[in-house]
């Protein structure tokens, strides 16, 4: 960590309002957060709290209604290869082979062919995916697609990696493996990561710091440091320290899930509600 530190995300008083004059929805309100260079930060909250919206702003897809998002001091206005993005849905280009997918960002940047190929093969080798370089995405499993998605996002050497519930579509077993792979890769590359999830264990296992968001409109409810040492191992998830964090986060999120559910019941439906809370929590509302 002796190199010049880059990849500092600074979100200052961010607010987003969707919709027209008549039907305004406040997705995010007065959010302050930051990600220090080479820090792994998770953003966790009940579904519909605007965490994905927040990530879209940092990625440059959505313009904030108020406040600003800065990367190394400069305001973020559009998407760019200085921020690698990994999406929840599979987003590999189905018409390109695995290697050409990884090369895509470099090609856009005008990197010559042999150099692109070299970088892509090196990265795929690091991720243990070199054997699949000529496969098409549709030939691969979901976990592999997401790993290639991460490799592709890293290929342009971005300063930050933005991940929007990247393992949300995977089964539990694959998910756990993917989390380990991600921590390994993150330690190799030492770049800043902003990771969105609604999985408490996942956020603790991966992060240095966790922001908990409130129900809509999303605000930062709490900021929690994860003092677990690195490298993290699967065994740590059994430790008392880990359990303590799980309980604390569960309590914080339960409050918000109930709040979210309450407001949704008001609107007249519980669709889109996520069962982060235990059954007794539901009973107490109903």
């Amino acid at each position, binding site marked *: 960590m002796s190199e010049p530190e880059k990849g500092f995300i600074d979100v200052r008083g961010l607010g987003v309002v969707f919709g027209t004059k008549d039907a305004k929805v406040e997705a995010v309100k007065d959010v302050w957060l930051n990600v220090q260079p080479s820090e792994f930060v998770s953003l966790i909250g009940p579904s519909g709290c605007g965490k994905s919206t927040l990530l879209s702003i940092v*990625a*440059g*897809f959505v313009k904030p209604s108020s406040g600003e998002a800065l990367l190394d001091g400069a305001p973020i206005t*559009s*998407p*760019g*290869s200085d*921020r*690698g*993005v990994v*999406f929840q*849905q599979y*987003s*590999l*280009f*189905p*018409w*390109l*082979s695995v290697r050409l997918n990884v090369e*895509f*960002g470099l*090609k*856009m*940047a005008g990197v010559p062919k042999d150099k692109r190929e070299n970088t892509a093969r090196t990265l795929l080798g690091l*991720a*243990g*995916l*070199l*054997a*699949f*370089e*000529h*496969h*098409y*995405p*549709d*030939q*691969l*499993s979901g*976990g*592999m697609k997401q790993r290639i998605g991460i490799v*592709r*996002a890293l290929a*342009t050497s971005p300063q930050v990696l933005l991940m929007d519930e990247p393992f949300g579509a995977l089964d539990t077993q*694959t998910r756990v*493996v993917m989390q380990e*792979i991600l921590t390994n890769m993150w330690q190799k590359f030492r770049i800043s990561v902003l990771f969105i999830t609604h999985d408490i264990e996942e956020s603790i296992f991966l992060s240095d710091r966790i922001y908990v968001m409130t129900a809509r409109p999303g605000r930062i409810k709490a900021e929690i440091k994860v003092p677990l040492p690195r490298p993290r191992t699967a065994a740590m998830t059994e430790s008392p320290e880990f359990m303590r964090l799980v309980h604390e986060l569960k309590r914080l999120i339960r409050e918000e899930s109930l709040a979210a559910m309450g407001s949704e019941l008001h609107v007249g439906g519980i669709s889109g509600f996520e069962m982060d809370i235990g059954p007794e929590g539901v009973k107490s509302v109903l």
Partner: protein
Amino acid sequence: MTVQNIRALPKQAAAEDPSSPKKTSPTGSSSAPKISTLVLAPAIALAKPSQLLRIVREQAPTALLGCISLGALFLFWYLGTKYKVDFYIRFKNVPTPYAVLEEARTVGLSNKFFINVVDSLRRIISGFLIAILIGVPLGLVIGKYRLVRDLYMPAIEVLRPIPAIAWVPMAIMLWPTNEASIVFITFIGAFFPILLNTVHGVHSMDGVLIRAGRCLGANEVKLFWYVILPGTLPHIFTGLAVGMGVAWVSLIAAEMISGQYGVGYYTWEAYSLVNYPAIVLGMITIGILGLLCSGAIRLVGFIAMPWLAYSVGSKR
């Protein structure tokens, strides 16, 4: 290696993979895409005898049913003309298959018939290529930008229901030569299916791919070329297949009305000259040329989009 084996491989390798990420795939990683890019005909030529047998066994029912289908059509024609059937439809003046074969033999050697075929093909290719060159870029832009869509679509929606044949008088007035007006009518026929399918293709594209392209640094032009165009390609090819069919309909109509040379002209001339076998010969020629043209499009699509062999719901 069979197609099934190739497709099963990645899954098998993926299952082993998480436990040992550095492990290399046992086989097939390089051969799979190569085979997928091959088209059927060369694949058969390259196959080993055992594979050939398998392909033959798999394709045999299809081939057999194909023969029955064509045979039944031929038999209907043969029996109808042999017994001069007159039961609501009249076979009295319909030439026999033999008469048509005789006609084919005589004109097949003549330069004139060959010129007719070449002329029609030249017109169809010109009209079709112009329709692609205008229809695909316009469709991409209309699909992507709301402003362009709002500007062009009303005009397109008004012009689209006008059949190409209704354009014949207007085309003759508009264009200096007969040739140009026929190509124009062929173009009209192909243009709308190509354009609308391209627009539809852009709309049905997964938005996450466009967002992925943008965060990987693609500017607007590169986004079109490297993301939107390949993502829309399957729909574009649907448009091309439909467009080719309509283009032939339009071409034949135009040739019959205003043409000189061309298979449509040949068929209509045969009717005027009361040369009945030549009518059927013209029809069969049109059928075969149309078949070849759609086949060519399917072949190009197969070569241009090898990844579709692996996509969900693929029927290949």
